[in-house]
C-alpha cells in the first residue's frame, strides 16, 4: 500500500490543502488517486478537464502507476508571467 505525497496548487490547493500524504491501494494509478479525491471533495469534478498531473516533477497521464514515496502534483491551468 504505497504512501504518496500529494501537492496541489491555486484553486485545487484551496480545496485540498497544499500538501499531505495519502495511502493508496497496491497498483493504483494517478487517476485512481484523483477519483479518491473526488469522492472526498465532489467540487473537484468541475476541474477535471483542466487539471494535469505530474509524478516526481514530470507531467504524467492518469494511467501512470504510483509508487511508494512519489510526489503527485495536481496542476490547474497555468497563469504565470
Amino acid at each position, binding site marked *: 500500500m504505497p504512501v504518496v505525497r500529494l501537492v496541489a496548487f*491555486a484553486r485545487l490547493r484551496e480545496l485540498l490543502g497544499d500538501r499531505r500524504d495519502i495511502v493508496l491501494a497496491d497498483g493504483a494509478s494517478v487517476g485512481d488517486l484523483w477519483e479518491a479525491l473526488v469522492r472526498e471533495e465532489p467540487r473537484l469534478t468541475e476541474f477535471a478537464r483542466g487539471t494535469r498531473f505530474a509524478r516526481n*516533477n514530470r507531467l504524467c497521464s492518469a494511467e501512470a502507476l504510483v509508487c511508494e514515496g512519489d510526489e503527485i502534483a495536481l*496542476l*490547474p491551468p*497555468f*497563469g*504565470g*508571467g
Partner: protein
Amino acid sequence: MIFDIVREAIDVRAIEASVLAPSCGGIVSFCGVVRKRADDGREVEGLHYEAHEGMARASFMAIAEEVRATMPEVRLAIVHRVGALSIGEVAVAVVAAAPHRAEAFAAARFAIDALKERSPIWKQERYCDGERVWVENRCSGERQ
C-alpha cells in the same frame, strides 16, 4: 544564466550582469509588471503568485535549452517571483543577451511566451472590491 523562483523583489540588473559576456552586443530584458487594471477593467489591488518551484525551474531550463538549440550564442536567464505583489512590482524577468540584437529580441520573446504556456505558475488577481480570481493564461491548458 539564472533560472529561479524567488520570494523577494527581482534584481533585474544582477540578472543582466549574470548573462552579459564580452561577446554580447545586445541585451533584451522583458519584465512583467503588476498593472492597475485587469483585462476586464477591474481595479487590481495586488497579485498573488504561486509555483511548483522544482517543475518551474526545470521548465525555465528546458526553455533555455530550446533557445540554445536554434540560437547557440544567446545567453538567457529567467526569474519569476512568487507571493504577494503590488502594482508596479516585477513578477517575472526574462533577459537575453547575444552578439546581435535580432537574436536577443527573438530569444526573450520566445522565452516569455513559452513560460506563460508551460511553466507551472499560478496567478490570483486580488481586486480592490475584495474579490479574488485565479487567472489562466490562454493556451496554458493544452497538453505538452
